[in-house]
């Protein structure tokens, strides 16, 4: 098996993600690539997450923290120079297939192998870590690493974080904690108790970790990495891909395209509504609330989908309110009715301006 090793070109998250994608696309038959990279202060959201639901966009903009969307699934994470990212890329799929093939010649499934590489690298630095849940690695009672995966063409990429010395205060500041948030379409993050490796071994640095990951990668595949370099065409391709990763269309996704988002705090909690509008009519609605009421988002969708986006029609959608009998959990009917009434009053008094193009 041919082993290749690359490091990121810089600390720019968009360039780093672009380079990863390029490596995935050029990974050859019988090749495995280890790619290590770091981002400057960045919130990285999962492929199918709603940016506005994961992090305070205004704070990020104010503080110069970047926002990036990666190719893999899963939840939002915060990166800075205290975090090391690793990607393991290989060709594990028959060409054109979308699903992993069961038959893995001469080696275990890549997810399992990747976990072993990370656990051995940590162990060689005196950190006893273990795989936890489906995609996490824990040590010293906290999560030190999280994995995520994507398949593209006939290649597979598993990547993850390793928290060496991340500024935990920033992490808390730039990622929303999740409390009873309701997601209409979109993947919610799970909040984990995180831990820096340096709190377990104070002598560890990012450089040490890079060396031990490389050694562990080579050990796992029984070989040595050949010195690999990017060609000029790789570099120009990475520049093009970077534009996509840095674009609003990619970062904010389809909910930004034709969206009208409104938000208001009520006595019982905050409500954020994102409308998709087609020909002036609400065709999609994403409702988020920190009120502990699992039925509210559904009740709102039931009333609002198909309704023209203007105050009078929205108000009408809430009149004849019977508390939405039949679609709410027992016992919460009264609260629901009150919440819906307040939301209806709010929407009825809004002017949305412009025509729904």
């Amino acid at each position: 098996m041919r082993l290749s090793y690359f490091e990121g070109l810089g600390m720019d998250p968009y360039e780093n993600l672009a380079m990863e994608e390029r490596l995935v696309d050029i990974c050859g038959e019988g090749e495995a690539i280890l790619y290590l990279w770091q981002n400057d202060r960045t919130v990285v959201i999962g492929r199918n997450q709603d940016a506005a639901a994961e992090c305070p966009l205004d704070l990020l903009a104010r503080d110069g923290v970047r926002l990036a969307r990666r190719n893999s699934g899963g939840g939002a994470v915060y990166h800075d120079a205290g975090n090391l990212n690793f990607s393991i890329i290989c060709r594990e799929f028959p060409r054109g297939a979308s699903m992993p093939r069961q038959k893995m010649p001469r080696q275990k499934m890549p997810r399992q192998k990747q976990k072993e590489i990370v656990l051995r690298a940590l162990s060689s630095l005196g950190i006893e870590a273990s795989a936890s849940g489906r995609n996490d690695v824990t040590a010293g009672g906290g999560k030190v690493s999280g994995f995520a995966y994507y398949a593209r063409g006939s290649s597979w990429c598993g990547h993850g974080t390793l928290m060496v010395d991340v500024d935990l205060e920033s992490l808390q500041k730039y990622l929303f904690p999740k409390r009873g948030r309701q997601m209409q379409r979109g993947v919610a993050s799970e909040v984990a108790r995180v831990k820096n490796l340096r709190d377990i071994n104070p002598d560890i640095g990012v450089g040490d970790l890079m060396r031990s990951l490389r050694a562990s990668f080579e050990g796992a595949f029984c070989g040595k990495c050949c010195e690999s370099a990017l060609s000029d065409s790789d570099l120009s391709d990475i520049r093009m891909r970077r534009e996509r990763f840095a674009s609003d269309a990619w970062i904010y996704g389809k909910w930004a395209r034709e969206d009208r988002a409104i938000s208001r705090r009520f006595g019982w909690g905050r409500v954020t509504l994102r409308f998709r509008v087609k020909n002036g009519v609400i065709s999609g609605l994403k409702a988020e609330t920190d009120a502990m009421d699992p039925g509210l988002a559904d009740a709102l969708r039931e009333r609002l989908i198909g309704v023209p986006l203007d105050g009078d029609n929205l108000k009408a959608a809430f009149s004849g309110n019977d508390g939405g009998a039949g679609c709410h959990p027992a016992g919460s009917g009264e609260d629901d009715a009150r919440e819906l009434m307040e939301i209806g009053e709010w929407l009825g008094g809004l002017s949305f301006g412009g025509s729904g193009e």
Partner: protein
Amino acid sequence: MKVREDYKYTRTHQWLSEEGGSALVGITDYAQEQLGGIVFVSLPEEGEAVAAGRPFAEVESAKVVSEVHSPVSGIVGEVNEALADEPDMANEDPYGAWFVRVEGITAYAELLSAAEYTAYVEGLLAGGREGEG
């Protein structure tokens, strides 16, 4: 693993059910089992063109974000919005949870009968199930 006798299949684990001039497309029971719990399905818009053998949708599970390939070329006439709202329908009822209805079909990918697809998957499974974590 379940296979529906009246559907056609691809080696990339999609099913096709033709009725009249259009066809419903989804992913197979084997595919959903490989993926595990599906948390997100990304679907095309109505009116978009799809091409046989090319990706037209994506699914995200805890294991992977993966492309879904179209068994036919044509135009998306209908999108299963209910699946977008509840992606795990594809786990619970893979042969009921259609992704899109394709109309104006102009070309087909290589399709397998239920028996052929069953044999194909059995071949994959016989290839050995190694230490998946």
